[in-house]
């Protein structure tokens, strides 16, 4: 894996508020929110005249919004017409791919500055429609007719991990609890509440209605109760990420122009992408994602870094099991050992390896095509020391990573960032 031919810097990053915004906000509105937020984060300002292309990551505006061809639409809204405006699709990894392609285009010398857009407006469809659209990211020939849903495929993977490594439902729950603790500190997150807070408000509501108050001792009791219904065994509602509308925007610049925008660029020193068979039944291993391992291998090799060098990481927790597997696939922990580290608090905000300080897809939300770019937004903030509320980690972040997984693991994109 060669080094990038030219250094590429992240000079600005921002996002819209994530949440259920339709019909008050649609793709164009969300994207402009993200653009303005990112512009405000560029130290010396940035203008559309400075930008050579707009790379758009979007999963399925075609099915969610009956709108294809999103690239030129998004570019036009921010004054980038007639510059190149391609759209990239790789399910939930769509804007991770857009970011990677922008890095490669700048490194190659074709472009100097690129705006990366990630955008998705999902709530235009009812939940059943969203579930069906998400299912098209998995194999529609053989898995879907057998009843597979998106949560169903991750539940299936979880059963294999539980069987092989003894992973428990409490292990899964710890991931959700931790990510909600982070999301409550993120003003851009969809659910800014800890699971404990949600439990207490549920109790309060039942008391007010004169109903029996459940004797939940802690979050685990609450999460095992009927208030957290099963979706696809062993995954319950609070093991699943959210249905979200949102957008994110990143500004990337070549080394020789980056200083025009900021004195403190964040360098993207490693990029990797991997793939896997779309159907789970065509994979050799159901307890790990080969696409993640391949993407990570490439990114580590390009940057010259090792897993132990990474200080924080945003991983793709579309389901709680996915965060556990990611920690193993990225080489932070041995296979089957991540749950012990999570139990010890290592991945909390004040732990040795904070994971998903943004709140993750679980609490921040998961507008699928925007998620990869939003991962980079959190890393930008943490490395700059500008993460809101009480979310900023207590050490100087010099080396960080993002991990963006598509569908049930058919695509993965990994990036490494250094100051």
């Amino acid at each position, binding site marked *: 894996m060669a080094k990038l031919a030219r250094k590429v810097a992240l000079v600005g990053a921002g996002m819209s508020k994530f949440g259920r915004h339709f019909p008050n906000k649609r793709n164009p509105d969300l994207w402009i929110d993200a653009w303005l937020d990112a512009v405000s984060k560029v130290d010396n300002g940035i203008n559309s005249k400075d930008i050579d292309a707009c790379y758009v990551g979007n999963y399925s505006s075609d099915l969610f919004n009956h709108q294809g061809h999103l690239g030129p639409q998004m570019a036009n809204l921010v004054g980038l017409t007639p510059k190149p405006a391609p759209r990239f699709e790789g399910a939930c990894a769509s804007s991770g791919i857009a970011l990677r392609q922008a890095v490669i285009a700048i490194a190659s010398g074709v472009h100097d500055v690129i705006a990366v857009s990630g955008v998705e407006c999902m709530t235009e469809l009812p939940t059943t429609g969203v579930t069906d659209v998400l299912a098209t990211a998995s194999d529609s020939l053989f898995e879907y007719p057998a*009843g597979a849903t998106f949560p169903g495929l991750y539940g299936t993977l979880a059963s294999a991990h539980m069987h092989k490594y003894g992973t428990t439902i409490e292990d899964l729950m710890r991931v959700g609890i931790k990510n909600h603790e982070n999301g409550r500190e993120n003003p851009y997150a969809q659910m800014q509440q800890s699971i404990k807070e949600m439990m207490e408000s549920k109790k309060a509501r039942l008391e007010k209605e004169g109903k029996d108050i459940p004797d939940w001792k802690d979050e685990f009791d609450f999460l095992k109760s009927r208030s957290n219904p099963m979706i696809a065994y062993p995954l319950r509602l609070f093991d699943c990420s959210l249905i979200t509308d949102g957008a994110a925007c990143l500004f990337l610049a070549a080394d020789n122009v980056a200083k025009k925008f900021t004195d403190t660029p964040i360098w993207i020193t490693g990029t990797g992408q991997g793939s896997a068979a779309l*159907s789970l039944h065509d994979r050799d291993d159901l307890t790990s994602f080969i696409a993640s391992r391949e993407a990570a291998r490439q990114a580590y090799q390009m940057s010259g870094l090792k897993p132990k060098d990474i200080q924080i990481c945003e991983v793709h927790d579309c389901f709680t099991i996915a965060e556990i597997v990611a920690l193993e696939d990225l080489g932070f922990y041995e296979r089957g050992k991540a749950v012990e580290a999570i139990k010890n608090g290592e991945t909390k905000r004040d732990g040795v390896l904070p994971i998903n300080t943004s709140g993750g897809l679980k609490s921040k939300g998961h507008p699928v095509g925007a998620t990869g770019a939003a991962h980079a937004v959190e890393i930008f903030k943490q490395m700059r020391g500008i993460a809101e509320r009480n979310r900023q980690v207590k050490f100087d972040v010099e080396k960080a990573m993002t991990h963006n997984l598509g569908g049930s693991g058919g695509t993965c994109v990994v990036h490494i960032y250094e100051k």
Partner: protein
Amino acid sequence: MSEIVKDFTIESYLEYIRNKKLMGSKCKDCGETYVPVRKLCTKCNTANMEWVEMSGKGKVAAFTSITVGTPFFVEKGYGRNKPYCFSVIKLDEGPMVSGQLVGVDESKPETISVDMPVKVKFLETEIKGETRVDLGFEPA
């Protein structure tokens, strides 16, 4: 006269399923077996296949019990109070396939286990006067 060999396409595979046969393709060069069928052997990059019938026996490789199902399964009457089991089955011949697992207690998924031996069961559904056949499995 030898029988006309069906082309190694998805439709041929599905037609076998409709006739309640689980068929795969076997590479005549290296012996690798593919279910669902494939025309190209990705082990040796040749397209030199023959049809082979699977025994239909295997083990659960992974599974889930789904309460929020796909529209087809909702139409079949599955849902919150009647979950269904989606499974990945490792066939005795080696390949893995996806299918609904029936004959288990879907509402007590803790009682279903990985490695549990299963056998093929073709599942019939009446839709608009026509019978649809899907690949499924049940405990052996």
